[in-house]
């Protein structure tokens, strides 16, 4: 990032982990950073912080999180009168690009948006996982990175925490393998994904074994129901698009899913007919109603699995 003529930065976007990392990077360059809570800001406080120099150091960093500024003109006025050596960082989960303040920062300072990886940017996410592990002095195999991404999704803070945990677990070893990821992932997470695989393959034995393991670990039954529903819904969408679109990336864009997951579902789509998928969704709805009206949840969950794998009879 090049140094702008006014040391005013706006970091915004959904990916708060990357924003925090950026702030951490800035913090390391200053001896006494000052943090202001944007919700309790007053112009007087701001004026004292931005326009008064530091007593002890030449350079000063002021970080303002989630600033709520009504009088934008006054704010711009303060930023124009920044004391020498003061750097200001605004951090926010969103930014209104139509406001005067945003436009002023773009013109005189720097605004950076931190976006989450889109579902079709999974390759970039895998690279990020690899880089992160390397940054901590370890390597991670491609399969392990993919498994980690499958378990944690695209939440970078969560992924970073998991990488740190696995590195602690492996100790002196140099490379993270799939077995390490599996060892530390919760039984629920790994079994839930394995259950989805078994359901796609209509493998009733595996479905019931995994279902049993999930129930024993007191996994939230409604989360599982949600996961199953989204899988069958995606398969229904893929099936409905048959003849019009077959390329996973294109399907992923159309239905808003991950190409990796679309590819996984597409591989088994031939096993299902359109009416069967509709029937499965109806069975999931009926099961959800039973769970909510007081029937034995675990037993009805297993009955549902048996209904969803008719090939196993």
């Amino acid at each position, binding site marked *: 990032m090049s140094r702008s003529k006014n040391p005013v930065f706006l970091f915004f976007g959904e990916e708060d982990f990357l924003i925090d990392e950026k702030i951490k990077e800035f913090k390391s360059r200053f001896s006494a950073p000052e943090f202001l809570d944007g919700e309790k800001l007053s112009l007087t406080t701001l004026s004292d912080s931005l326009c008064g120099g530091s007593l002890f150091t030449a350079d000063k960093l002021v970080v303002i999180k989630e600033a709520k500024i009504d009088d934008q003109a006054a704010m711009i006025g303060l930023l124009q009168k920044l004391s020498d050596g003061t750097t200001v960082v605004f951090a926010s989960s969103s930014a209104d690009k139509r406001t005067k303040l945003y436009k002023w920062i773009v013109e005189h300072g720097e605004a950076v948006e931190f976006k989450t990886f889109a579902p079709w940017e999974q390759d970039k996410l895998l690279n990020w996982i690899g880089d992160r592990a390397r940054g901590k002095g370890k390597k991670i195999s491609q399969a392990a990175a993919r498994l980690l991404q499958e378990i944690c999704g695209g939440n970078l803070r969560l992924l970073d925490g998991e990488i740190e*945990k696995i590195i602690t677990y492996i100790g002196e070893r140099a490379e993270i393998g799939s077995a390490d990821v599996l060892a530390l992932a*919760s*039984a629920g997470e790994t079994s839930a994904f394995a259950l989805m695989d078994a359901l796609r393959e209509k493998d*009733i034995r595996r479905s*019931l074994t995994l279902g049993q393991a999930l129930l024993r*670990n007191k996994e939230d039954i409604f989360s599982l129901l949600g996961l199953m529903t989204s899988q069958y819904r995606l398969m229904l969408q893929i099936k409905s698009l048959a003849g019009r679109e077959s390329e996973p990336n294109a399907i992923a864009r159309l239905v808003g899913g991950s190409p990796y997951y679309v590819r996984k579902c597409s591989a088994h789509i031939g096993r299902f007919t359109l009416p069967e998928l509709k029937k499965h969704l109806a069975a999931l709805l009926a099961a959800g109603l039973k769970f909510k009206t007081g*029937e034995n949840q675990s*037993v009805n969950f297993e009955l549902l699995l048996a209904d969803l794998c008719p090939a*196993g009879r």
Partner: protein
Amino acid sequence: MSYVSLYRKYRSQNFDDLVGQTVIVQTLKNAIKSNRLAHAYLFSGPRGTGKTSTARILAKALNCKDGPTPNPCGQCDNCEKIRTGHSVDVIEIDAASNRGIDEIRELRERVRYAPMEGRYKVYIIDEVHMLTQEAFNALLKTLEEPPAHTIFVLATTENQKVPMTIASRCQRLDFARLKLDEIKEQLKKISKVEKFEIDEKALDLVARSAEGAMRDAISLLDQLVSFSGHKIAYDDVVTLLGTADEELLFGFGEAAATGDIAAVLELIRKGLEEGRSMQQVARDLVLHFRNLLHLKVGSGESLELTADYLKRLEAQAGKFTFERIKAIISALSRAELDMKWHPHARLVLEVAMMELLGERQSVAVASSETSTVVRQAVPAAKRITPNDSPVAVVQRTTHDNSPVAPDQPLTHIKEHWSAILESMRKKSIYGYVSLHEGEPIELNGGGKLVIGFRKGYSFHKERLEETKNKQALEESIREVLGKHVPIECVISEGIVKAPSLSAKTVADFFDGRVVS
């Protein structure tokens, strides 16, 4: 010294004592050795899997005089104070009773101060998912910028209720449910030290009933010792748990396989006589048939049962089809729910079983068109119909879908009511029982037959309104009257229905006796 319960006496005091959590132990030991401690941990998992014990061991490991060490001495002042709960640096908070923003604000104020005796201040927040949203928001601020000398351990049994903003700022360690063998091994160790005699079958049942929670298993062992002394037998465990024993469950299985209604009714009576609650029997039956389902599809290994038990289950599973097991589980699960709010739980279970076996029998006897299901289980001399009326002869007539003419006299329907009831009994036992509590009161302007129920009988009204039962009744009316008559159910205060079944009739029907 006062009595200390077994689970407190045998609580793990160091990482090596922890049962069944090897991955977590290795991670925490490595974190201490390589100084890669997280500022906040989230311990999640089912109850009784070692979350709080691990948190305390971690606190000892960090604050032990020899520490930080993966092997705390357990002897120094700090270790001893943490063990007895007197350490000022280890603060345990029960989030279930301190769940508001004020408690968390107070915590935030105190977090700033350095530890007094050890190196770290360790905050153990148990059942963290119980905090309010505002309290979570306040906690988030602390977790974002925690002081270097503070470590948070958040423990929860319901991980999904912890906001992602909190969970993603913690290192999450998932405590797995303990395996059957691990629990059995620990129980054996305790029994050996305490000089308890417990047979293998009893040990197996204790471990199984704990469902992966070590604390539950040890507590149950403690109760068993109070109940039956130092010698514990299988029957003691069955009595204490109030569960149906193996024989009862396999007996039900056999009766269901052969369609022996009399045997089923006898088993229900026996269960009740032995002091078991009908809900518990239904629950155990559901689990028994669910075990059979697993055996049927080859996933029996996941059940963690003994080889002998599995063998017996396997033999019984062979007597059912996959679909039949599913139907039985479904019906029993529904009955288990109905029993929660029906005043006669026994009747619900009996009717459910009769309906289940009835379906099977009606398939078997369809060709011979013999009598109804219930009559097959009851001696001929005791066969009765409600009102002690003779068995109605069902006249099959040509079906006609046109609604009944408004001038169809209600008296005509009333005259044939017992035949309609009889026909209904063949179609749906549940529907029959509910219909029996109502009576035809009018044919309304729309040509619908209005069936009235007394106040307080809305359960039967709603049961009869279920699509399946409603269709069965309309079909029964069509069979008897030769006309399609739509029905409507109402609660009518004017109805005073004389009890049509005397106590003696019921006693005769079930081959029992009137007690008072």
